[in-house]
């Protein structure tokens, strides 16, 4: 198929960006979206132009590196990561807009690459269990009810891609933060740090400049791993409980 691509080009964090238009030909429906961009980049290199920079690594939908807004949707029209989106989702002759994540807490590094280190700092604020190596009790010492284990797992599936932030009209990171809070807070291993975890992570989230949550629900719609909107409700309950218990905010 033949496509027209309108791609956000921005030399670096300080430069101004703009959309540039490229035509690509001979695109197979079996190609992944990123393989289509590879094809464009091979042509750009041979022409002596700067290829389009984009983050990608595993191309299996699990590392969370890829991060494109395609025709206005984070990760494009299907509920998947950009790397698992295939060209069969598009029609011959389509014009496709490709932009980076848009959020003030995710500054552009170059072209379609953004800086998501704010997510790492949210985890550093409390998204862990303090369990130094070697200190662990026998794994079967504490059974975990299967529903709790399943709930923890469903939240732990978050790949940290940032689509939730990109899709949110407020640029909020509530879905990301709530996924980790819920994952660890429901488990007995996470219980001792239950209050500090949610308070510290939410405080860090605010400090990073993410927007507030108005429960628009766009995050859960964009999430390639299906983290549900109710996760946010879960975190709000944890946060309320923690503020009451600790008197902290």
């Amino acid at each position: 198929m033949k496509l027209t691509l309108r791609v956000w080009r921005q030399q670096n964090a300080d430069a101004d960006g703009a959309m540039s238009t490229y035509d690509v030909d001979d695109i197979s429906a079996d190609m992944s979206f990123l393989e289509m961009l590879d094809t464009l980049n091979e042509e750009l290199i041979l022409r002596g132009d700067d290829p389009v920079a984009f983050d990608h690594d595993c191309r299996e939908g699990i590392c969370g590196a890829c991060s494109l807004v395609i025709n206005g949707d984070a990760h494009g029209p299907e509920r998947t990561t950009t790397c698992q989106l295939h060209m069969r989702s598009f029609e011959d002759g389509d014009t496709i807009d490709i932009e980076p994540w848009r959020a003030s807490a995710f500054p552009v590094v170059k072209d379609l690459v953004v800086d998501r280190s704010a997510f790492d700092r949210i985890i550093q604020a409390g998204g862990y269990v303090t369990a130094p190596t070697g200190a662990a009790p026998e794994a079967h010492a504490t059974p975990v009810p299967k529903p709790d284990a399943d709930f923890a797992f469903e939240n732990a599936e978050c790949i940290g891609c940032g689509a939730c932030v990109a899709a949110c009209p407020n640029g909020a990171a509530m879905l990301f933060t709530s996924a980790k809070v819920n994952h660890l807070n429901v488990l007995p291993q996470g219980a001792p740090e239950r209050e500090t975890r949610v308070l510290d992570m939410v405080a860090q989230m605010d400090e990073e400049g993410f927007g507030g949550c108005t429960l628009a629900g766009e995050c859960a719609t964009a999430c390639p791993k299906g983290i549900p909107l109710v996760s946010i409700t879960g975190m709000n309950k944890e946060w309320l409980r923690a503020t009451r218990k600790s008197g902290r905010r």
Partner: protein
Amino acid sequence: MDEMADITDMGDIAAEFAAYTTGAPVVDTKAPGGPVNERWDTRRFEAKLVNPANRRKHTVIVVGTGLAGGAAGATLAEQGYHVVQFCYQDSPRRAHSIAAQGGINAAKNYRNDGDSVHRLFYDTVKGGDFRARESNVHRLAQISVEIIDQCVAQGVPFAREYGGLLDTRSFGGVQVSRTFYARGQTGQQLLLGAYQALSRQIAAGTVEMHARTEMLDLIVVDGRARGIVARDLVTGKIDTYYADAVVLASGGYGNVFYLSTNAMNSNATAIWRAHRRGAYFANPCFTQIHPTCIPRTGEHQSKLTLMSESLRNDGRIWVPKAKGDDRPANEIPEDERDYYLERIYPAFGNLVPRDIASRAAKNVCDEGRGVGPGGQGVYLDFADAIGRMGRKAVEEKYGNLFDMYARITAEDPYTVPMRIYPAVHYTMGGLWVDYDLQTTVPGLFAIGEANFSDHGANRLGASALMQGLADGYFVLPSTINDYLARNPHRSGDDDVNDEHPVVQEVLADTEDRLRLLLAVDGDRTPDSFHRELGELMWEFCGMARTEPGLRKALERIPQIREEFWRRIKVPGTGEEFNQSLEKANRIVDYLELAELMCLDALHRDESCGGHFREESQTPDGEAARRDEEFTYAAAWEFTDTGEAPVLHKEDLVFEYVHPTQRSYA
């Protein structure tokens, strides 16, 4: 085979490289003696310790943040060391360990099915086709039980039974149920556990994390590893980092093949540059081809996707009995199907080890019975499993894998059998390390897939996660103490700095290399060279290898290398975010490593595990080892680009598991 006719007429360059010499044997001086089950205790007791108050004065560099690196960085920091850690990704959470699906082995014997540390040890030595060290493998089996405890304590959400206890399953080539899993995302969950432990240390200031920073060379001063040269991938700035010890946890080198299940940016530069600086490279030809990957669709293919071989627990593999049968799978009646693994290996059936399953798939495709585009695929059929367990149970167990398959192929595996084909997946070879996981460069350690230590010639399923975490959480943090205690850091020790002549030379090397890549301004892209090399390696150094094929590859590689430096085109500059430059620089190293892999494969004139030499097979087509000549690990010493390396043999001794020809029939 026609193109092999002219191989006797091989080029001078290839002949020169292939004329390797044999040097003194390499000896593991750290391996303790005594009963195998006491050796790890013995070593830990004999190893010197560093006074806790002195640890913060020691800096340890860790390159990579996968299971091995993430676990090591977190644990060393918990012990009090100052850790400086690097990853090329934008976050330490994205290392490719995250893509491991199936599970992690541990000899917990929770099923009361006859498992034990000794059985895991035995299975791993046998599965590795008697090319791994008994001491290392036994230690791995012992530590496996602690890993599960550690991960559960971190909040890793393993699958559980209704009673709240951990669930296990049997996995690739073993008959006990010892594999712990988190749906099809075990690697992700274990990695996030390590990442979270690391994050805690980053917040505490004990780990200095450099994301989007790639190691480009090793600094060796007075025979000891003292630091690295690394490039900030955002600004392009090349910097030096100094330490008392350097740990490489940079993963394997499967991307030599261009198409593999590795992440796109996984690369061999850290280990190859360390090899060039003196670290021996062991068993480079031991690469694993994974049997259950999604077949390629065309030239544009950028990588291959693996599906957990846990699928082989319930899926049945078959091809049509007749050649060229192109009816849709569902229209081929039962008696016209060949469930070839069940037929050839009735005891293990679809659960034979990876190398055997892969080669069998290649054989039936070579016979013209393959399915799908180009006949490069076999069916993996769940119709029986769905009939037996119900669709819901199959969904529960494999749902995410089925979804992934459907997304990539646009086919519904609940109604149409999956198509699978083998792909390069894991590299058992890597930097040679002793029992302490130290390379031949003092102060340089290699852990996880980056070393060669535990899997011999073939890795069993669910053992990579086990080894990465064993090395990172438990082995390295114990053994590195011994090195640091014997090489104490003196305060105000700034003998190594940017002015040091060795550092200046290493820096100049790196800068020159990048400058040259940018200066060639030829007419071929980095990917075009990578693809060409990969196709060559897949054909001649892939699932089945022959002397003429390997010689042909050894002749071609220097020619590709020469053409690379004449025709490579890298746009942009070195002082910016430049993904083409990153790629091209990695290919420089693949073009040398590939040559060593082929030479290693050529010199190892036997078949074992993942290394199958067509000249060495049993009458029924199985790998035939030649123990009298090849019961050793081949550790190669670098001399110069394209020049004959030196082979150092480490003899392997089997006191507990006696070599037998593997039989899974």
